[in-house]
């Protein structure tokens, strides 16, 4: 069955897999992507939609910068609009300790080319007058923003398909075998797939697959807690977040141009690999209300119309797994993005394609290597 052979097989059709397929085609490699259900339906589709560099693990900033540059070119690259809006990103602090954290992060981020503007409470309110009096300071990242997660991964997959990639949905991989010259995968429909190179970008399921390939990783799955308000006039330009060590204060929100305000945070719910997604926990929804009102009191006049959850994979060290296998030639990983994969997704695809095609990458990704767990 020679038609099921390609230079690269990608296991998992989330944003990472779809973007990798797209950029591999740009480099001229043939690629088949196998997705168990539909492209971009899990974490890639249900996440908050933050295109945020501010606050990331500093060694991840070169990758985040590369990704940010791609976000800016997306409509021309993909031929589709995924509603990327470089509206700025603002983190607020409620305590002097959080202000100190912000200052030290700003200093650390500067060498990476991420310039953050620290504003005092009054200065940040002068610029964003809807912020509450409780806000002690703000850290503003002018070139970050947000996009629509429901559209991004499917748009990458369609663009990859137009460029010649095979995107196979409803293709559940049952077995992965090594054979001479590469990898042999069997799907539930009885088809066989072969390639010298395999990339595992199976998100929350990545840990299970890595373990089957002899590289177990410490990983848990969790359900993000999301909600959205009715549409109101567009007023909250920057994406908002909080700098805090207290999970119950962690809140993020963004207003889309058509007016709805998407929010999440203050806790996680359970998630399971082999069960339908859980719904958002209403106790958390109600707690989010208190944090929404705390940050932007005027939000107390709105209503929410929908909540949702899903599944995300978190590594114990909060750092993703990305790069070549420590064990098998031709095997690559990109999973476990710890609820913060959306912004770097296009960059991950670009870097993985570069790595697979050239054997190296100009963007440092050593901290993410799976070998760190052995």
């Amino acid at each position, binding site marked *: 069955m020679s038609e099921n052979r390609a230079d690269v097989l990608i296991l998992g059709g989330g944003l990472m897999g779809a973007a990798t397929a797209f950029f591999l085609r740009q480099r001229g490699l043939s690629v088949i992507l196998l997705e168990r259900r539909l492209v971009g339906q899990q974490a890639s589709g249900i996440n908050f939609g933050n295109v945020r560099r501010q606050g990331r693990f500093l060694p991840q900033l070169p990758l985040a910068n590369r990704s940010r540059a791609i976000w800016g070119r997306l409509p021309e690259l993909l031929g589709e609009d995924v509603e990327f809006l470089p509206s700025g990103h603002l983190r607020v602090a409620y305590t002097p300790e959080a202000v100190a954290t912000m200052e030290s992060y700003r200093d650390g981020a500067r060498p990476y080319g991420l310039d953050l503007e620290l504003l005092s409470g009054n200065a940040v309110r002068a610029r964003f007058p809807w912020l509450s009096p409780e806000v002690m300071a703000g850290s503003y990242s002018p070139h970050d923003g947000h996009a629509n997660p429901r*559209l991004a991964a499917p748009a990458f997959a*369609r663009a990859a398909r137009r460029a010649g990639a095979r995107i196979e949905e409803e293709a559940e991989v049952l077995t992965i075998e090594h054979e001479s010259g590469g990898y042999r995968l069997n799907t539930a429909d009885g088809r066989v797939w072969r390639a010298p190179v395999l990339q595992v970008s199976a998100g929350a399921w990545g840990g299970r697959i890595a373990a089957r390939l002899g590289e177990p990783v410490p990983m848990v799955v969790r359900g993000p807690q999301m909600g959205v308000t009715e549409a109101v006039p567009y007023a909250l330009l920057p994406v908002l977040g909080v700098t805090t060590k207290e999970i119950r204060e962690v809140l993020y929100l963004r207003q889309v141009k058509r007016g709805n305000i998407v929010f999440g945070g203050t806790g996680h719910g359970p998630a399971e690999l082999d069960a339908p997604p859980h719904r958002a926990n209403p106790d958390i929804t109600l707690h989010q209300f208190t944090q929404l009102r705390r940050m932007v009191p005027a939000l*107390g006049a709105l*209503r929410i119309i*929908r909540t949702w959850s899903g599944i995300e994979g978190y590594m114990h060290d909060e750092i993703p797994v990305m790069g070549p296998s420590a064990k098998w030639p031709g095997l690559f990983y990109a999973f476990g993005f710890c609820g913060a994969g959306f912004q770097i997704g296009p960059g991950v695809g670009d870097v993985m394609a570069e790595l697979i095609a050239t054997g190296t990458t100009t963007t440092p990704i050593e901290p993410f290597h799976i070998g760190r767990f052995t």
Partner: protein
Amino acid sequence: MAAPRVIVVGAGPAGTRAAELLAAAGLRPTVVDEGRASGGQIYRRQPPGFRRDARTLYGTEAGRATALHATFDGLGPAIEYLPETLAWNIHGGALYVQREERARRLPFDALLIATGATDRMIPLPGWTLPGAFSLGAAQIALKAQACAIGSRVVFLGTGPLLYLVASQYVKAGAQVAAVLDTAPPGARWKGLPLMAARPALLAKGAVLIAQLMRAGVTMRRGVVPRRVLADAAGTRVAGVAIATPDGGEEVIACDAVGMGWHLRAESQLADLAGCAFDFDADSRQWLPRADEDGRASAPGIYLAGDSARILGADGAEIAGRLAALAVLKDLGLPAPPGQDVAALRRQRQVMDRFRRGLALAFPWPAGLVASLPDETLVCRCEAITAGALRQSATELDAPEMNRAKAFSRTGMGRCQGRFCGIAGAEIVAAARGVPVEVAGRLRGQAPVKPLPVAALADDASTLEST
């Protein structure tokens, strides 16, 4: 042992009869009602200060309405009544409710859902114009406020409510320009054998139609509606355009239109409770699975009334009793004396036969919906057209409604697809050339209706347990 916690959601015919029976069994059920007073939609009470008598408000059903109100009012402290309260979510064995700025978590051992139904709508071009109402809304205007929706009204759609509302308008002195039924002329005969299960009700329907005829109201069957027309300023309904046999168009002038194609079950709470759903081919909609007494597939969840099966008000009273008896049985409690489950089940079966007859006599015009023009606004909350929805199903390759929703935003607004979801599934199914059940149904997402961010949790400590 603490008394079992039983919650009834809804205080219409099903909820009232269920609460009555549970109270008679010695429980003190909590009754959660979105309304200001019991009665539900069908037996909605008028606001304080209005003085129409029961006969004026409820017509031939006056006796049933007053009996039901009296029963509910007589329960008094035997139940905990929470009026003007939204049941917005179910999680971890608790119902989440909200009234004004107060949010409460109500743990339950049994939850009886009797949330009724709303109009099943077709998003005809022009359906969002001021002056275009659902049949239910046209009836509420009359019942609650003694107002007509216009001075010259067209009623369009199909189902018993079409004729009932039209006759209520005639009786109230409003001018009814026409009653336009999309059911083919022969459909009524197809439904007749099953509808004969309830001859008295069938006779009532015949009387309604005779009254409309006597009043000189134009009545048409087999109507193919094209659109609701606007006035010159584009700000108000000015007529309804229907197809003529020669391929032309006829306009019936009016300043308001009441539309509805029978009813759709309000089944979101059952969905949030994790109940399984099945596609009901007769009514061409997805309904929560329930046994003959109303036990849903999720433990502790019971369904009664139109939110489970559109049996109408009388059927809802029976289903409410049956579901309450099922609750008692499952909790190991004795039923109050004088309850004949077998007789109730037989009555329910008769009503279910009638229900299927109605579905045949007043069919949902799936073909009309599937062929709505591309520029038609299907999702009115998010302003999504039929063309955009079709594109998500074809170009973007969404195989079913939830994927089409993710791509197109259809069903993502305030109503969460309650009014466009059924029509949307027909459009997606037709665009993909698959049966409508393959296009699926929109999965329920909390809140059931918009929930104020101002809502404060009664018991903040509940979060600690999460």
